């Protein structure tokens, strides 16, 4: 339908949202992602019956961990949409991009940049 949404979203295909483990979300943040979306089917419509419910619980767990270590919990979010709902996906993409923009770049990214600059300096010195 050629709807438009910002380019910041990069999509990884998994068989079911239930396949996304907590470690995947944390690793993404560790590698410097500013935000993580886990998108699953509408509740009750999951092809694998309860995959999306597991995903929801894991996202909540990651959000709690983020809060505890002083990062914004909204950087990770769970969305549910149906396969036929193209506009909803575009809406989600825009909404999440806005939200993450407000939150600003991920502290990890800056820290890593700083660290790599420092290590470069050390090497140079």
């Amino acid at each position, binding site marked *: *339908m*050629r*709807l*438009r*949404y*910002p*380019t910041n979203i*990069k*999509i*990884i*295909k*998994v*068989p*079911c949202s*239930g*396949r*996304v*483990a*907590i*470690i*995947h979300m944390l*690793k*993404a943040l560790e*590698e*410097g*992602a500013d935000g993580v979306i886990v998108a699953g089917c509408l509740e009750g419509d999951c*092809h*694998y*019956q*309860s*995959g999306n419910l*597991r995903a929801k619980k*894991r996202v909540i767990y990651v959000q709690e961990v983020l809060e505890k270590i002083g990062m914004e919990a909204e950087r990770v979010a769970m969305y549910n949409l*149906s*396969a*036929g*709902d*193209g*506009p909803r996906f*575009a809406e989600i993409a825009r909404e999440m991009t806005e939200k993450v923009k407000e939150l600003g770049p991920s502290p990890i*990214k800056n820290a*890593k*940049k700083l660290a*790599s600059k420092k290590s470069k300096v050390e090497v140079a010195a």
Partner: protein
Amino acid sequence: MAKSKESKKVGAVMVVGGGVAGMQASLDLADAGYYVHLVDKSPAIGGIMAQLDKTFPTNDCAMCIISPKLVEVGRHLNINMITNTEVEGLEGEAGNFTAKLINHPRYIDLEKCTACGECSRACPATAVNEFNERLDLREATYMTYPQAMPRGFVIDRSICVGCGLCEKVCLAEAINYDDKPRQTEMEVGAVILAPGNGVFDPSRFETYNYMDLPNVVTSLEFERILSASGPYQGHLMRPYDREEPQKIAWLQCVGSRDINHCDNSYCSAVCCMYAIKEAVIAKEHAHGELDTAIFFMDMRTYGKDFELYYNRAKEEGVRFIRSRIHSIEPEGECDLLLSYVDDQGELQSEVFEMVVLSVGFEVGEEIIELSKRLGIELNQHNFALTDTSTPVTTSRPGVYVCGTLQGPKDIPQSVMEASGAAAASSALLNEVRWTETKIKELPEQRDISEEEPRVGVFVCNCGINIGGIVDVPAVREYARTLPNVVHVEDNLFTCSQDTQVSMAEVIKEKSINRMVVAACTPHTHEDLFRETLLEVGLNKYLFEMANIRNQDSWVHMSDPEKATAKAKDLVRMSVARAALLEPLEERMIEIKQRGLVIGGGVAGLNAVLNLAQQGFEVVLVEKEKELGGLARHLHRTIDGLDVQKYMNNLIEEVQTNEHIQVLTEALVVGFSGAKGNFTTEVLVGPGMYERKIDHGVTIIATGAVEHKPNEYLYSEDDRVMTQLDLGNFLHENSKEAAKWQRVVMIQCVGSRNEDNPNCSRVCCQGAVKHALELKELNPDMEVIILYRDMRMYGLLEDYYQEARSKGILFFRYSADQPPQASRNGDGLQVTFTDQVLNRPVQMSADALVLGSATMAADTEELASLLKLPRNRDGFFLEAHAKLRPVECSSEAIYLCGTAHAPKLMSESIAQALAAASKAGSFLAAEELRVGGAVAVVDPERCAACLVCVMSCPYGVPRINEDNVSEINPALCQGCGVCVSECPGNTIHLGHCEDDQISANLHALLEGVI
């Protein structure tokens, strides 16, 4: 099986009409080993269903259900889609026909056309878009709908001015102006007619002045308005000024049950349900409060869970007004005035902002012509003439019919009949199975485990869809710099046939062992590329797709630089993941070539007979002493079939067929194994000795029972009887019955109340059948039927018509004021409140006949043994109400007859044939592919903590003898939940390993820091 000389039968079938029925029949037959020619007169298959927005009763979006079927038919090796073609004639006899076709010119070569859409964007000529029911325009070169199959455009000569612009813009040089109509002939063994039907054109109703009031639309137009791919992108707007209507009315029976405007006296069976659906969905779409009103005569929601749907609609505020609107007058600038008489008899008039005409089915001229050309007889409504006991066989042997040409019906019924027709043709052509079909020989798979990953990257322009926005050459050059990449190339259309061939060569030449294609969505093209890999001897899982079209170029059109950067990221991610892809082999396991049918009623008998005719060994298990089930108590069907005679020779045929083994007085006590290899334990005969049966498929046909009412003095007075009792009574002593002066019948006894909210579908026609019989016995007997809704759906309406003309009186009662049966002296009395006079009426009766409900048989134990879900009322749950009505959710177990839901005998037979067809197709494959993208447990690190056992939604993981967890590849659905839950991280999911995902992540974010 070599083609046997003496039978000159042809192992191919022609299916006429590519709607949902045509597609289902083609798929069943192709899987069962026959070559299918699917002929459709329009440029794309999909039929009416493709135009629908949502479908009742599940409210799934029609496109979401039908597109997998479309892709499957489009890609199936043994289905040859011939679109834009009509059938000229058909000679020959069953098993060996010669069909003459005319292929109308398409002017676009389907091989080359990649559906990029440039031509239609440039085309200057426009015409009314029939797909969107004339709500908007379309160009001369068009594709009927975005997901059309075959994916290609067509030029509509009637409006094309021939300016040649499309040829100029078409990069694929697919346009061919001197395409000519071609005559072709082909040999087929059987023909299945599924041309579907047109809908009634309401312009014939001057009083509705449909033509000059834009806000009066047909139901199909309303479907397009609601559909997300429709003219208004799914926003609820009325055509005149695109305002959101606040009040919409639906007028039922437009072009059905009507003899003065048109001669369609039949009921179109689906309009009530789709009107309710459209009202409910419209409410969902509306922002503010939407007042919806349906004007109807009888609310005919007779199918499975239809009544629940009707009740829920009432709860959601849909108003149901029992009156037929005569005319629609314009009011103000564009509103509409309807006037009607309400229940209390007062004249009411209301102004609506939009009116939807629920148009019924009508057999179009073309279809009538087609039927004549193919030499099949039509009944008085121009539907195909079929017999109750053989619902899918036409008057011409070897030619079968299914779908709406056989009679007005809804999608599940059409799909059932489609499978039924497939079963019938499969039985006819059983000896020449697998003779015409092609099987793809695949070269030996190269063992690449030792090799270093050598990744080939193929970036696609997809015409200008990608190339126009993303700088493809830059992406290609960027890919060259990525690790493990040994070859990069970009091409105009990677999915076109010639590119596939060239890619195969490149792979061989550079011994590439991983392939990354940056193009469109894996959903539509992954299998296509995987097949190319197989053809070149590579394991099909060594393939990764970067979606740089649907998820990049198409959605970032306004920002080419960022889109190109994103494309590079996506390619980098895919290359990183591709390097880690492992070859996954799929094991073939043998399917036990025997079927098991549980339940020996009319459905079970038909299923077992057809399976046998398809050449398979079948065992029939029946817990009663003799076969027949509920049909034993029926004598005559409403259209005159002598049930007992039919049942007797059916049973005789089953017992004499050497492929069938009948076990009566047999109770199922054990059930184990997986699809293709079930083992069932049965206790047989009075001696209850145990028998173990190994079989590949199971068909459930456990039937239903008649509800024994506990009201209306049923058990206290023998003059009060159920319809079945009356059937037996009439059969034995009809003279006695003739003496009756007055017979009162009460409908909906035990149905449509709290504990059984569903409608039992068959009691209305049962009552009318017996009423007509009674009138024959004694014309001046007074027969009175008290009903809540007369649900004489489809062609049954004629009998309702006949009953009224013969003086049978019909009185309506409302659920909250049911009739009372009482006794004074030894006379029987019935009192009820007449809706028109609104006063109680009391009358004596010689006999009181109750239309009692059809309830589910007690299958508690069987359901738990087979782990089959049942709904609240005890009927078995089908896998999908619309598209898989005869399959259970667990594979290779099929369902038919009244075990699924109450239904007419002819409908049970159709469903039985459908179940036999599905079972036949499954068995015909002889081998089953399992494994591949499934979960595997690494035993060393398994702490046997049972987390996987507890978290798998399908309960597949088991702890084996050396107490570590084990996952049966045949049952694992590959969702990967256990992989993420396992605390020891010891479970691996083929093609979606943790390291592959982290490689993806790492590669993505590598660019960032």
